């Protein structure tokens, strides 16, 4: 048996023992819900008629409210099998991904394969219902959409045939998947790239160039209202201006970094290092928050450990 297998075995045993203890000491890993009837408020009452029966939805119940004071399950609360299964699936998936820390393994790869497929399909479906159905079909054939998925479209809306152009572009774009004539997808791609270039050129020049220069025009010596010099503000302003300018010099490629330019560029690189140091610290902080969140899920949503405080 190699080291990898040993580590895996130990982790699995520890986890198993823990789960067994947890199972022996109380319930966990369940989702309880309450069934509620939807009171619908139809926009046009006459159209609804009697054929439409009220339906019910499930509302999750907070863990503290599942049982009454005697520890009995409340009458309107019941175990939701679908969501409980989901919870266990989520917990197992979380553990599968975490198992990558022990080493690359089948479970991690399985979970990774699932997330790749599911996330791509998820984005596609959301794009379909929002962009394609509402903004394209809803404009091109409001009548059909009104009768099916988008009853909210006002009666006054009529088909806007100019939307045929983006439709044609879209078909061209999907043509890329076809075995022949894939070059046609360059037309919509060119539209996409051209539009991006057009808006970016203006907005970057405005917000990230002109506005930044304007924001850096500050007095190096700040005089307070009473006529005395505000040393702290003056120092801060001077540091900002010197730092911005020296970094700009570092990123200036037309002159060699010699003499004054060399010294300034040197200051520039130090400022950049402080910048990166700050970025480093903030990134580390962000990453750690992500594990807290997953542990939060495992400990409290799945294992129902007591929440301190």
């Amino acid at each position, binding site marked *: 048996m190699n080291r990898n297998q040993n580590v895996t075995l130990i982790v699995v045993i520890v986890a198993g023992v823990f789960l067994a203890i947890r199972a022996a000491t109380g319930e966990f890993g369940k989702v309880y819900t309450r069934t509620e009837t939807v009171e619908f408020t139809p926009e046009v009452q006459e159209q609804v008629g009697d054929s439409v029966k009220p339906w019910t939805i499930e509302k999750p119940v907070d863990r503290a409210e599942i049982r009454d004071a005697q520890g009995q399950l409340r009458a309107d609360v019941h175990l939701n099998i679908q969501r409980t299964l989901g919870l266990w699936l989520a917990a197992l998936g979380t553990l599968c991904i975490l198992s990558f820390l022990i080493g690359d393994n089948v479970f991690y*790869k399985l979970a990774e394969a699932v997330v790749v497929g599911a996330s791509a399909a998820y984005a596609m479906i959301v794009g379909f219902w929002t962009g394609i159905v509402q903004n394209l079909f809803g404009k091109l054939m409001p009548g059909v959409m009104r009768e099916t*998925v988008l009853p909210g479209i006002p009666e006054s809306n009529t088909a806007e045939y100019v939307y045929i152009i983006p439709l044609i572009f879209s078909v061209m774009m999907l043509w890329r998947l076809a075995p022949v004539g894939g070059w046609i997808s360059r037309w919509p791609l060119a539209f996409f790239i051209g539009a991006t270039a057009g808006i970016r050129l203006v907005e970057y020049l405005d917000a990230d160039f002109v506005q930044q220069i304007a924001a850096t025009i500050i007095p190096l010596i700040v005089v307070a209202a009473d006529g005395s010099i505000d040393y702290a503000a003056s120092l801060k302003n001077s540091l*900002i201006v010197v*730092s911005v300018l020296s970094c700009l010099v570092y990123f200036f490629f037309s002159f060699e970094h010699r003499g004054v330019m060399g010294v300034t560029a040197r200051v520039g690189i130090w400022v950049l290092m402080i910048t*990166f140091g700050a970025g480093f610290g903030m990134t580390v902080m962000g990453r750690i928050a992500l594990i807290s969140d997953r542990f939060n899920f495992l400990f409290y949503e799945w294992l129902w450990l007591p929440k301190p405080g």
Partner: protein
Amino acid sequence: MKRTVPLCIAALVGFVLILSEFIPFAQSWGRTAMIWFDILAAFAFVLGGANLLKIHLLKISSQRVGWGYSVITVAAFTITMVIGLGKFGVTPSESFPQFTWSGDYLQDGSGFWWMYQYVYLPLASTMFALLAFYIASAAFRAFRAKNTEAIILLVTAFIVLLGRTYAGIWLTADPLAWLGQTLYGDPQALAMFRLDVVVEMIMGVFNMAGNRAIMIGIALGIVALSLKVLLGVDRSYLGSEE
């Protein structure tokens, strides 16, 4: 046809959008172009999904290494897609109860919501949580104070890491107040050296200035790149074949 038309399209739409910023009359053209852009963006999601499917189906059919995982990916993709398209478990919208299909595709309790909540969300968020572990091991084995630059970087990182938690206040607030009291008779005299204050200074002065210079540089880079695309100097987006 294959190269000239795309170049013209890109130039036309790009310059219309630029002009619409300066000529009020062209504003509505610019808006129309952007609405079409947004519709194309929706199809980009479809293209992305279809592409993924194609790659994995090819991998399966040629039985390349790891094709078994591709089967899983395709299965996960198909299941999510069918559930989402079919609006499984979605009840009608409360405003339009007579239309079975009028409900929100992501309604709480629906099948698509279930896929998001119990499959996509835990897996994707745990995937990124792994990074915290890697940062720990890289901290031990990779980040070396080997020259002046690296020393400045790491020291700043320490200050930020400690100053952005209670540790910063705990380590420096009381000692500095005591020192200020002893030296100048004012506990606030040295307050500006408190780690949490120093961090605000680093973020608001040096980090801001450094990032501003980077921002100005990137902005100019984007302007130059956009211009080259619109003028047809840079045609890399058209691909190299042909």
